[in-house]
């Protein structure tokens, strides 16, 4: 039987506010346990929440960016359950009246095609603390630094049809929240977390299969692996005559498998009700207008502009627009050298592999955009060849200065004097007289192959500095004689 996968994702994005959603405590990651927990975060008797306006602004930014309706009045509700890292015995969240309503996000797949994924809603809530199970001699410790950190929970429609699409969606979301400056997107630190709702159904069937929810998958790679594993598990289960049960599962990256955490029957009755300590949040149009005016160019807009203005391919535009910093870098290179295609090639090629190798972010690049643009200018005016440029680039990465300084210092300027090239070629041909004779005796097809040999010898003799176009042209003339 042919199976179709149906996936819906819930992404929790920690909002990059200075302070918590309902208290004045700082939200910095990695502080000593419980040093960023105030009376409110500790759930002390008598304490009350006060909503952080910046969290509301960020949620609105997000809502506008996904073309969603922002609820003119949204309401915080209490989600009641007991857990040691939940100090009040309830999480303040939003249920019936979320701040962000229906919207969508367009994603680009590897083949360059795009798909529109619906977003059901996004709501504000507070994060819980953390339970620490090591170093307490059989007991558990509680760190409430994270308790009260603002989260935006973004719920997608079940529109996603494969693990690859899921990854593309999370990447697009990651890119969007970083563009908007509302989340640092650091998945390793838990700033962006993903729950995957996965089900399968026979191809052609319209109703959904029973879904399992995989909790807290925290990297792009694990999302793909966890979903693929879960899809396989469900198909095998059904094909063996079994039934998928609605449950929460955990992905174990070490074993590459998911395992059951709790079934629907064990699930809490959260007893949601409107939080009486917080008033409904009324969002005025003037506020939304102001937020809208503050929106940066978004990834999709940037991608389209890169295609339109610079003639880049959909794929190149998508890669370059994925992060605001990378896009800014690319645009700066282009502004310096005025050649978008060369700029794109160098940014996506040499520069990206350098950054990957050194595990650096674009902001930490050892080669500045101006340096790279300056080097491309020297390619364009034939001062250096593409091959020499790679040497120049490496030297720039090693901090040896600008392209011009390196070309000058190392004498890498391309030889374009045809007299000099001709005498160099004469020497090469003389040293390879036997091959010259063979070449001249050969037919057209064979000559084509042999020609490359002479070019290689010539470039080697010139230490790469001879202008390759001239070498080609002059060599042909001499060989054809």
């Amino acid at each position, binding site marked *: 039987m042919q199976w179709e996968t149906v996936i819906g994702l819930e992404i929790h994005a920690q909002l990059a506010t200075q302070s918590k959603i309902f208290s004045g405590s700082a939200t910095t990651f990695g502080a000593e346990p419980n040093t960023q927990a105030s009376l409110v975060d500790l759930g*002390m*008797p*008598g304490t009350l929440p006060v*909503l952080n306006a910046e969290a509301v602004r960020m949620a609105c930014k997000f809502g506008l960016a996904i073309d969603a309706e922002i609820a003119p009045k949204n309401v915080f509700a209490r989600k009641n359950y007991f857990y040691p890292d939940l100090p009040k015995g309830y999480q303040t969240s939003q249920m019936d009246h979320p701040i962000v309503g229906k919207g969508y996000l367009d994603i680009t797949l590897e083949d360059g095609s795009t798909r529109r994924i619906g977003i059901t809603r996004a709501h504000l809530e507070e994060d819980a603390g953390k339970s620490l199970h090591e170093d307490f001699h059989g007991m558990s410790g509680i760190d409430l630094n994270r308790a009260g950190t603002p989260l935006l929970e973004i719920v997608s429609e079940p529109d996603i049809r494969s693990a690859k699409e899921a990854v593309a969606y999370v990447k697009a979301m990651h890119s969007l929240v970083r563009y908007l400056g509302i989340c640092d997107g650091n998945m390793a630190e838990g700033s962006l977390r993903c729950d995957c709702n996965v089900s399968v159904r026979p191809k052609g069937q319209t109703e959904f299969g029973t879904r399992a929810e995989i909790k807290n998958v925290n990297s792009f790679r694990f999302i793909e692996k966890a979903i693929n594993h879960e899809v396989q598990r469900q198909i095998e289960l059904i094909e063996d005559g079994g039934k998928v049960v609605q449950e929460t599962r955990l992905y174990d990256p070490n074993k590459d498998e998911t395992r059951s955490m709790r079934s629907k029957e064990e699930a809490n*009755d959260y*007893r949601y009700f409107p939080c009486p*300590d*917080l008033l409904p949040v009324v969002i005025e149009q003037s506020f939304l207008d102001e937020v809208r005016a503050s929106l940066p160019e978004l990834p999709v807009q940037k991608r389209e502009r890169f295609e339109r203005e610079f003639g880049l391919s959909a794929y190149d535009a998508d890669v370059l627009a994925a992060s605001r910093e990378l896009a800014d870098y690319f645009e700066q290179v282009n502004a310096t050298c005025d050649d978008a295609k060369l700029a794109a090639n160098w940014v996506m090629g040499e520069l990206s592999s350098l950054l990957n190798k050194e595990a650096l972010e674009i902001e930490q690049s050892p080669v500045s955009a101006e340096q790279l643009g300056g080097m491309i200018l020297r390619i364009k005016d034939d001062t250096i060849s593409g091959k020499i440029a790679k040497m120049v680039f490496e030297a720039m990465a090693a901090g040896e200065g600008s392209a011009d300084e390196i070309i000058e210092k190392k004498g890498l300027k391309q030889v374009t004097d045809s007299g000099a090239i001709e005498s160099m070629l004469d020497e090469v041909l003389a040293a390879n007289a036997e091959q010259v004779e063979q070449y001249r005796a050969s037919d057209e097809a064979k000559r084509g192959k042999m020609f490359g040999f002479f070019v290689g010898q010539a470039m080697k003799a010139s230490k790469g500095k001879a202008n390759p176009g001239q070498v080609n042209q002059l060599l042909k003339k001499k060989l054809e004689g």
Partner: protein
Amino acid sequence: MMKDSDMHNLTLAEIARNLAEKHFSAEELTRTLLARIEQLDPQLNAFISVTDELALAQAKAADARRAAGENGALLGAPIGHKDLFCTQGIRTSCGSKILDNFNAPYDATVVERLAAAGTVTLGKLNMDEFAMGSANESSYYGAVKNPWDLTRVPGGSSGGSAAAIAARLLPAATGTDTGGSIRQPAALTNLTGLKPTYGRVSRWGMVAYASSLDQGGPMARTAEDCALLLSAMAGFDAKDSTSVDQPLDDYLAALSQPLAGLRIGLPKEYFGAGLDPKIADAVMASVEELKKLGATVKEISLPNMQHAIPSYYVIAPAEASSNLSRFDGVRFGYRCENPADLTDLYKRSRAEGFGDEVKRRIMVGTYALSAGYYDAYYLKAQKIRRLIKQDFVAAFEQVDVILGPTTPNLAWKLGEKNADPVSAYLEDIYTITANLAGIPGLSMPAGFIDGLPVGVQLLAPYFQEARLLNVAHQYQQVTDWHMRAPAGF
């Protein structure tokens, strides 16, 4: 110099004059009252904690401030706080075993503001556990006795505040009112007590019972003293999102307004079945007094009043079930011995730490919010709440204040209603609507039946505390019920 034997009979206003005229110092007054508490409170059990060290330090500081030229109306005024207002470094028990070991790490806004005004805190006052009760019998620290008859309840949940003031152990105290917990004990002990408009007094540091209904307020013998306390307690607080940013009226200045032309509404539903006829007579007698002062009277209707108690006993327990979840034995308060695991820790800490009435309300509230019942109970109760509010809005188009009995019955015998919680719930029938609607309400002394006090309740539109205090004060200028003291105190 005034004799020690007289100081305890003074009101806050009188104390202010005596301190200003240096008839005695705040320290002398404090020592006198502390001695009186030591001597008499064992009969009443009104105090959970007597804070003598703090009181003496605050009294000395107040005397120093006065010596330096300050002359605030509350500078050196001795008061007590209901034991659910957080007081830094001092036990804040809420009348519960689960917080018996809890020394609050901060001051409630009300405590902080009153302290800044120069009040002297003599102690923390007994109350029904987590303010759940109308008799002050659900306290972990034992029942409080009514000074007018030690075999009777003082009302609740602010029963400790009421008993202490009625017995002249204190001139005034803070209370909180979720369904009548200031007004009902005030009525049963011959005091004046005011529940302000919801949002008028900050709830920061006031341990929550039912957040959308809870409101702190003053309790004293006179309306004038309530005005003094309210002036210091009330006002916007950025730490409480439900606090209202609206300027305070001059409550003291408003007291002397004549009542000529005041339109009083008598809701017919307040005088129906269930009301002790002798209380009805006393209430009508107070109406006659007010008429003499120039008020006019009109019968009105609050048709949805009959739904108030069922609605309240869904909303309040629902909120309480969530508010009290934080008492889980993990971070503060009582923790059971040797928990086997996390579930055991939760179950036993809460089972051993909470009393029966609290458990009953947590269970009722949990049920009302549970999946499948939410619409039938909680949502419906909220709709009734809106109807009750609309009743008041409509009524206040015709009248300036609404007047009726505070309670259907006089103070009852200790233990009398323990077996039947619903009969105790019905004692709140006249007070609960003000909490559901959020309007201010006041109870004032209006006579005695068989030696037990009767209270009259006044209700006013939102933020018209000044009007309530004004009417009560004018009434107290022509009556002396509020000046009567229980025998033996």
